[in-house]
């Protein structure tokens, strides 16, 4: 079986021709055997691109035990039909839908072959976002509730269609695509590194660090740029600060949705010192403009380190006081516990990643399984909870904040000398495939690239953790009251723009 797929490491470039090309039948058999009933394996990416009038499909399946990613490929024709993989492995669902939408390839037996995001270059222009085929409830006892695309709060657009029995949600279907702005196409169109890193930073503004890091690492491996420990230090540090900032903001949002005003205000204001520190470091509250190919732009000085330790001490005191209170308030716990449950088996079936997996006892964390930057030199143990409810998701945030504070304190003790490599003198290797994974606060971010015979980008594929995890929200709200939808939604805090690209 060894010549049926190739095993690569995170950020390890390989010649495209070394990826075995199988018949479709063989391809599906191997894909299924690599991932089915293997708790330590999941699909990190599965995508297609045009080659010689056909569509080449590439599937990347991560094996957490081996710390490797198994890659294999096949060729299919547009507008033809092929047996669906989703029937055996439900986690293929979204990926097959994407291939269907982009190229018109049909997957026989796929239970839910619907558009994903209505990209501008989709195969069938007759399909428009206004006529998405929602599931209909046909009984007189059921009613439907439609929400969006424009929501009540200041948030991104997406449409939620509920089928309810009284107050109880029986089914939720989430239709996205409103945020589609052609990110992947633009990555190929724009040639300079400054343009590309700016795009990477704006894939999801709240995850600027992970997406920028994924792109930077990918490009460094394509060009064989050696970065030193200062780069690893800066990027890991930025990532953990971002994790603290967003998790704190999410805890504020959760308090808002259970009408706990004090928690909402206190966690809300506790986010400010974290994002303001980003501004002190790099001039931007969301850490845009910091991470660059070859290193990062603004040195992290001893003075900044000292300053941040002071900020952390005050933050920690106030955070612990508020968190302790929140977790012992019966009125708050009553709203969090057993609300929006997703069972471990469901989470595994849909191939959820990041926090959404860990809340239901599925230990998935790229920092542990495919480590990069500073995580290579440490034994990161992810925070895992068992219940799969809003309570577990809130607990994970609280404990991950503590964990990040511990890591940061440790790293700041030993700030490496700042060094940045000038990346403009390097060119990418020709005919090469590379995959880059990072673990953001939301979950794993995956960027894949393939270069042509001149070393120019031919394919650029981005996958935000939300691509897997929106399904988890759909499942979480089933049988809950519709009034609990906001709290379920906030407890996942998924990205619309990261999904729509």
């Amino acid at each position, binding site marked *: 079986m060894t010549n049926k797929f190739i095993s690569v490491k995170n950020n390890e470039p390989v010649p495209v021709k070394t990826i075995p090309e199988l018949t479709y039948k063989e391809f599906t058999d191997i894909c299924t055997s690599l991932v089915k009933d293997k708790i330590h394996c999941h699909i990190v990416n599965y995508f297609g691109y045009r080659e010689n009038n056909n569509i080449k499909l590439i599937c990347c399946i991560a094996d957490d035990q081996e710390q490797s990613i198994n890659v294999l490929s096949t060729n299919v024709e547009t507008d033809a039909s092929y047996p669906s993989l989703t029937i055996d492995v439900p986690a293929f669902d979204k990926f097959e839908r994407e291939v269907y939408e982009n190229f018109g390839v049909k997957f026989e037996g796929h239970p839910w072959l619907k558009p994903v995001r*209505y*990209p*501008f*270059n989709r195969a069938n222009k007759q399909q428009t976002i206004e006529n998405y085929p929602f599931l209909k409830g046909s009984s007189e006892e059921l009613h439907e509730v439609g929400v969006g*695309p*424009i929501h*009540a*709060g*200041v*948030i*991104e*657009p997406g449409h939620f269609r509920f089928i309810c029995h009284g107050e109880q949600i029986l089914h939720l279907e989430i239709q996205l695509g*409103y*945020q*589609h*702005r*052609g990110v992947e*196409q*633009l990555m190929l*169109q*724009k040639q*300079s590194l*400054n*343009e590309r890193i*700016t*795009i990477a930073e*704006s*894939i*999801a*503004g*709240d995850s*600027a660090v992970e997406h920028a890091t994924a792109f930077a690492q990918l490009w460094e491996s394509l060009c064989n740029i050696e970065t030193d420990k200062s780069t690893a230090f800066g990027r890991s540090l930025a990532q953990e600060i971002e994790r603290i900032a967003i998790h704190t903001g999410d805890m504020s949002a959760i308090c808002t949705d259970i009408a706990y005003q*004090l928690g909402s*205000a*206190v966690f*809300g*204001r506790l986010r*400010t010192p974290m*994002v*303001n*520190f980003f*501004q*002190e*470091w*790099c*001039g*931007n*509250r*969301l850490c*845009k*403009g910091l991470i660059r190919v070859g290193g990062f*732009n603004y040195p992290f000085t001893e003075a900044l380190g000292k300053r941040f330790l002071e900020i952390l001490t005050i933050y920690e005191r*106030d955070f612990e*006081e*508020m968190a302790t*209170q929140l977790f012992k308030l019966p009125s708050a716990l009553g709203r969090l516990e057993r609300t929006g449950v997703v069972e471990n088996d469901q989470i595994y079936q849909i191939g959820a990643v990041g926090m959404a997996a860990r809340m239901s006892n599925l230990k998935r964390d790229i920092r542990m399984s495919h480590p990069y930057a500073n995580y290579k030199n440490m034994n990161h143990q992810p925070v895992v909870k068992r219940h799969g409810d809003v309570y577990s998701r809130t607990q994970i945030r609280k404990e991950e904040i503590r964990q990040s504070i511990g890591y940061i304190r440790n790293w700041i003790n030993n700030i490496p000398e700042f060094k940045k490599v000038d990346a403009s003198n390097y060119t990418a290797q020709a005919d090469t495939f590379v995959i880059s994974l990072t673990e953001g606060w939301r979950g794993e971010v995956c960027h894949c690239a393939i270069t042509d015979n001149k070393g120019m980008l031919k394919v650029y594929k981005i996958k935000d953790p939300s691509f897997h995890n929106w399904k988890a929200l759909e499942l979480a709200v089933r049988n809950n009251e519709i009034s609990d939808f906001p709290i379920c939604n906030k407890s996942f805090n998924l*990205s*619309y*723009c990261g999904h*729509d690209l």
Partner: protein
Amino acid sequence: MLENIKILWHNGKQYIPDVTTAKVPGIFKGRPVIASNIKVDEDKLTALCPVKAIGLNPVSIDLGKCVFCGECALAFPQKIRFTTDYKIATNVRERLIVKEGDENPVTLDQSIIRKEIKQLFSGSFKLRQVSAAGDNSCEWELNASNNVQFDISRFGIDFVASPRHADGILITGPISANMAEPLERCYNATPDPKVIILAGTDAISGGIYADSPALERSFLEKYPIDLYIPGNPAHPLTIINGIVDLIRKKKG
């Protein structure tokens, strides 16, 4: 109860007393200043910019296009520096273009603000926010504008759930083809007289997405824009000062 009061007491006063004069920490990238007496390699300078915001003869930066990455200031620190002046919102698109030698602040042209805006909205101004293919960073800062520190509500400015309750719409993001119709419908559902505000570089010019085939920006050509708030994302203080300058009657 006692525990809650204790927390309240420990947190103390969090609000920024005067948001028009507050100082921002660190190396905030606000209004740039371009030195006119320094010559640089202009080809290299313009090639650096990911969004073609830098113009020549004279050297200028269009804040409506700028993503505030700071690459130009890092490469040519003698020529370009970003100040911490966050008051960069204006109602005249041309005023966002900062030229060589300009040291003056960016301001609104009060003489062209429609009379009804000051008359009706100066004490209470409700906005419906429409996110149209942005990256969630401006939405993030809009929410921050309403936290206990920045507290935009103190000026009677609020974000409301329905366009029918709103006095105007605030758009973020470069406006995707998929969002074009919902945006138009939202605007039509807002009662007259109404205001349009663009927040963030993406909304003002399309930003890094300006040439993307997935956008549909014709809405902006059809209707007058009352305020441009630049930034990537716009800072809460830029947002608050911009909107307040638009609606507030001048004292005295």
